[in-house]
């Protein structure tokens, strides 16, 4: 379905309105500040990224998994499903959809256990990854339902490649912009803007970083809503600003314990 973004479920159902998104998150935002909320998502995006890398998935699959994760919580509170379970479930589903292949259940669980133990002990301490295959499989049905079966996600990577080609192949520019697109997964832009706009936003930031003034005419000729691009640029720059003063290793335990959590069935 790479052919037609405009008729896709991504465009028709999953480009969300900023105000609505904030309203849907109201429950969580009564407990976490916007910045804390973003830090929590930043953390789980890292888990998805590391899981994906350990499983040798392509960035496209990792990006799709991250968007599934964000879409689920765009419509649901963090308390509905433990994000530590939803994160690997998103990876599992995305790898099937993106045709990386089915990750074997045992390999997925083992990878979750090692990743949590070796890379995220600063968040979970001595606690082990608590879920098993049956949890992932059950969670997968809930995820699919909440995604309304919209599984094809358009990513900014392909438009980015096309834009860089159009500019005249510039490997350094592509590398920078590619990384910025990766970083953009930690913001809400993938819920709010079409992927080609995110690609343009990433290119703009890359140009600023590399001091490339000569591309101004190229941007000026684009037939896009520059206000939207500026919103994207601002969202990503805000993320970079946040990172400057943020020590995840110190803060994340506090944030995870503050985060709204699932409640078990009432005791009889």
């Amino acid at each position, binding site marked *: 379905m790479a052919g037609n973004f405009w008729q896709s479920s991504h465009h028709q159902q999953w480009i969300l309105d900023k105000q609505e998104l904030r309203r849907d998150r109201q429950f969580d935002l009564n407990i976490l500040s916007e910045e804390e909320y973003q830090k929590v998502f930043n953390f789980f995006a890292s888990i998805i990224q590391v899981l994906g890398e350990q499983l040798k998935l392509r960035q496209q*699959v990792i990006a799709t998994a991250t968007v599934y994760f964000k879409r689920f919580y765009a419509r649901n509170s963090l308390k509905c*499903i433990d994000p530590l379970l939803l994160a690997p479930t998103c990876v599992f589903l995305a790898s099937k959809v993106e045709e990386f*292949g089915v990750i074997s259940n045992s390999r997925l669980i083992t990878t979750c256990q090692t990743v949590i133990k070796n890379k995220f002990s600063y968040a979970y301490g001595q606690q082990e990854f608590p879920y098993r295959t049956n949890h992932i499989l059950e969670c997968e049905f809930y995820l699919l339902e909440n995604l309304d079966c919209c599984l094809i996600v358009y990513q900014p990577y392909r438009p980015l490649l096309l834009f860089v080609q159009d500019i005249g192949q510039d490997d350094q520019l592509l590398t920078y912009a590619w990384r910025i697109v990766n970083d953009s997964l930690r913001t809400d832009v993938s819920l709010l803007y079409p992927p080609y706009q995110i690609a343009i936003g990433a290119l703009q930031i890359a140009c600023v970083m590399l001091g490339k003034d000569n591309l101004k005419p190229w941007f000026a000729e684009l037939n896009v809503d520059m206000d939207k691009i500026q919103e994207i640029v601002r969202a990503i720059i805000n993320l970079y600003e946040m990172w400057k003063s943020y020590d995840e290793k110190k803060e994340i335990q506090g944030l995870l314990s503050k985060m709204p959590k699932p409640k078990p*069935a009432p005791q009889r």
Partner: protein
Amino acid sequence: MGDNFQNKTMAAVMMDYDFKIKTQNERSKVEDLFDYEGCKVGRGTYGHVYKARRKDGSDTKDYALKQIEGTGLSMSACREIALLRELKHPNVINLIRVFLSHTDRKVWLLFDYAEHDLWHIIKFHRAAKANKKSVMVPKGMVKSLLYQILDGIHYLHSNWVLHRDLKPANILVMGEGPERGRVKIADMGFARLFNAPLKPLADLDPVVVTFWYRAPELLLGARHYTKAIDIWAIGCIFAELLTSEPIFHCRQEDIKTSNPYHHDQLDRIFNVMGFPLEKDWEDIRKMPEHATLVKDFKRSNYQNCSLSKYMDRHKIKPDSKAFSLLQRLLLMDPNKRITSEQAMQDPYFAEDPLPTQDVFAGCTIPYPKREFLTDDDQEDKSDSKARQNQQQQQPNTQQNQVQQNSHDHGANNAKRMRMTGPNQGNNTGGGQQEFHQQQQMMFGSQQQGGSSQQQGNYQQRF
């Protein structure tokens, strides 16, 4: 799975109880919304298909409910849902909704119901031919079918989706109703995006296209699927519609082999098409199995074979527009094979009779409705597969060709009940007599009779 969300080791709660109850209450169950018990109409490796009606009577349409084989979300179920969720075209099957049954972990897909498919249609014509009976269908039916298949595939291809498993059983035709006589391409379980394969295509499904419809480059080990592979399959289907015989019919010993090279199937293709000349397919030397080809085959064995001779034997004249289009679809060199778009521009479609949106062109549909299958509970799946394979291995004689084909559906093992009377299927009623003048036999419809002029009055044109 049950209610045991609480994990002993970490005391983590996986899912919020209120959320679980709320979604449970909101979730509609397929068995609450639809009546389908005892209405199984299809069975195969993909699962089971039922003819269903809404319980609440909000409409009286027929639906097709497909229960996907196995439990949970297999990769092919995922692909099918992901792609069908996005695709929308009159000639591509429309996924209405998905039901996830949490208790037994079954996945159900709801589609519009298509009463016919090309496998059954061709089978019907073949049986009629064997009994020396004629079937009255509109003169342009094959053309209309082909046009709509091309239209659907063109849509898929322009959306960077390959079907990869085109065969008569996957080409559905709508029965009576608002979409009467419209082609619907189905069974996208194997479909995949091909603009940016994350894995070499051959790694995922060792064998995907049923051998008879497999393009020669696949049989020679091509690792990447292309649009041209679907086009070849369409060419095979077109030939089969024209002659009622699978053009590259071949005995098959083993369906699931990871080796794409298939000697007998190639032999069959060369027996029809002739052995490809170097100048006709320059890149054949680059095919992974080219060495095997050179070792196993002798050009001289196919000296007298050609598509025009084959089709001529089946009464399709080499100077007809149908033949000329067929030849462009069935070019051995995938790079020279035409695209669906080019095929739709072919003069064949500009020639009278013009293709119609209702492939039956308003005439009585001569084909029976689908029969309901009953479950044979004793039957174990592997057993049924073994029998299907056996079925395929029967020698190719006139008598059992129809039977042989039936591996596509796997329905031949099931006991059948006829649910509809003959009223729908047969065009024997006196009041329908007038149609006969506009109808001709589907096969051997090359003669340009005077009937085509009258036909024009009844046909809706594209």
